[in-house]
């Protein structure tokens, strides 16, 4: 009892932030699964979704803002893919990664320009920020909503991937890019759909995340983005359930580490975990073997 009482706040916080990482991580893992690209700009799409919400809510009703934010994220993500990644698809891997880093640099600097470097306060969305008490812990409503919503969304996504035609095409493309295109699968469409799903989830993630941590500045996307990527690697890149499990593990572990008092290394821990997993089991928890043809 004492144990639970002491650690409940940390676990709750960890589960909540884990769910938010999970929603971002799905975007990473799906894009990586198909394009073999670490989409460095994904964290910044997440940040921009939050920023747009700040501006939209001042002029539009809540429900419309939420819808528009999701649409905005989708448009931004697919535009990035079309402009910055598609022309380089046949270029060396390094070029696409550099392009991704460049896009991330651009999005951050543009946000800096728009906000003037000032932290924007995220609006209160419905009852998400209301305070609730559970046992010894007091927390925000969003903390409880996040894991539930995350799991529902992931379930829907897994269903989509398993049972629809586009889902099958996605699986095929992530297995073998070239063969799939020879088989007549419209690769561009599959990639676009992947970005649409990833960005929509990131937008939802941004609503939850920023309702919990209500300040947005240009670098707000960078750290959650990196952590979500680590979560995706941890769970096995390309695997949606893996990314979700990874995200929850990282979220909870990070908060427990802060709870023990090793606060200096709470971020570093994420990277330590990444390196350990890459050394010990490069394919992650649920990942499949990555095969190169000689």
């Amino acid at each position: 009892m004492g144990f639970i009482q002491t650690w409940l706040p940390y676990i709750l916080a960890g589960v909540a932030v884990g769910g938010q990482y999970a929603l971002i991580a799905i975007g990473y893992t799906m894009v990586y699964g198909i394009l073999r690209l670490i989409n460095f700009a994904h964290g910044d799409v997440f940040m921009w979704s939050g920023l747009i919400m700040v501006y939209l809510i001042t002029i539009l009703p809540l429900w419309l803002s939420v819808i528009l934010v999701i649409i905005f994220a989708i448009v931004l993500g697919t535009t990035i893919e079309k402009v910055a990644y598609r022309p380089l698809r046949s270029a060396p891997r390094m070029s696409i990664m550099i392009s991704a880093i460049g896009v991330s640099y651009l999005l951050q600097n543009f946000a800096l320009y728009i906000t003037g470097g000032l932290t924007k306060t995220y609006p209160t969305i419905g009852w998400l920020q209301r305070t609730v008490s559970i046992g010894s812990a007091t927390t925000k409503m969003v903390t409880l909503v996040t894991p539930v919503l995350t799991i529902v969304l992931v379930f829907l996504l897994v269903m989509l991937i398993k049972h629809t035609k586009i889902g099958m095409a996605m699986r095929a493309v992530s297995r073998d890019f070239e063969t799939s295109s020879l088989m007549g699968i419209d690769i561009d469409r599959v990639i676009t759909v992947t970005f649409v799903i990833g960005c929509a989830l990131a937008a939802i993630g941004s609503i939850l995340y920023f309702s919990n941590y209500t300040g947005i500045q240009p670098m707000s996307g960078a750290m959650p983005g990196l952590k979500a990527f680590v979560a995706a690697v941890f769970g096995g890149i390309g695997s949606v359930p893996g990314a979700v499990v990874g995200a929850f593990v990282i979220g909870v572990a990070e908060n427990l580490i802060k709870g023990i008092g090793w606060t200096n290394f709470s971020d570093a821990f994420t990277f330590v975990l990444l390196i350990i997993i890459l050394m010990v089991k490069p394919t992650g928890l649920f990942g499949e073997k990555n095969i190169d043809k000689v």
Partner: protein
Amino acid sequence: MEKTLNNKTKLVLSIAAIALLLILVYVGDNTIPANSSWKMLITVIEKGSIFALVAASMNLLNGFTGLFSLGQAGFMLIGAYTYAIFTIPGKSHEAVYQYFDGGLIQWSIVEILEGKLGVFGHYIGMFIPMIGAGLLVAVVAALIGIPVLRLKSDYLAIATLGFAEILRAFFQWNSLGPITNGSNVLRKYTTYGNAIFPVLVSGICIAIIVLLINSTYGRAFRAIRDDEIAAEAMGINLFKHKEMSFVISSFFAGISGALLAMFQTTINAMPFNTVMTYEILLIVVIGGIGSITGSILGAFLFISTSEWLLRGLDAGKWLGISSNLMRPGFRKVVFAIIIMLIVLFYAQGIMGSREFSWDSFINWWKNLPANLKAWPAKRKAKSTAKKEARARKAAAKAKAKEAKAEGEAKRASGEALFTPLPTSDEVMVFGKEGK
């Protein structure tokens, strides 16, 4: 038109050019008053040469060995701290390590040697910790390299990025305060007196990198970049050579970190973050991945524009143009857009993979009038070619559309276009696991 100079002439030319540059920098730094704009040029040359070195070291990894590493800022951090920690004069310790009772290390190499050897000892005292910084970084890199270099391209990138972040957290750790001063700045350490110092040191280091690249080991690195499997089949030990390249690159990153510490006169760990690594990477990209000349040009171009010439974009007025758009931050937006344009349309950067040589320079210079004259005609030809290409593309598109329509019709009529994919368990691609 092609004319080649003999090697002796080239050597003389190179030495003369370098000597002239050094003299200009030396005299410039000594005579130009601080409030002159030309002083800013000297400052840019100082910082530019430091970033040229770190960009060249990153290019050795990314451009010549094909290892996509993003740990450069972390290595610079170690280099900067190592240099600073060992050259803070004894009497300044109390002030610098104000929260840590003067710190653990109470002496300065510079002071010790200066006491024994005079002015000569002063410079030796600066070189020892600088080289030591490089060596320490090399050792750290060697340790990091053992696990990390077995990873493939993008995993390697993210793992090195991770290590750099861990290093930063480590240096800011309060428990190490007596050595690293924790979160507080280190200052008062010995710095150079004239801008010629970083230019000279960077120049020597870059020359060594160039020599390495042109040696048989450099050839092996490039072989690994071009084709790992073939390189292995040629008897090149992948891990050994990757580790070698990683360690050497890190050594020079460490040196440049030490130089940066001297340039800044104060250091803290905060700025050595991923953004700094990205900036170094962008310098390499602007200059051309696989060209040391490019990295040098890129560094000066990047530093001079981002920290000097484009500043007006933030202040509302630049080159006489003023606009409401020019608010703080505009400079960086413009910069990021330029970088994206380079990445997308000039993927090879300024130099591609070519290097500077006197022959091509002289030929370029000789052909310049002719080329300039021919330029309008060439442009015209290019634009017509572009138009034709566009027309061809449009035709192809129309054709594809037709084919698609045909396919749709077929599908509508119930014909099978292709056999469905087998379920996942039956698909198997041969290959090797990451070794």
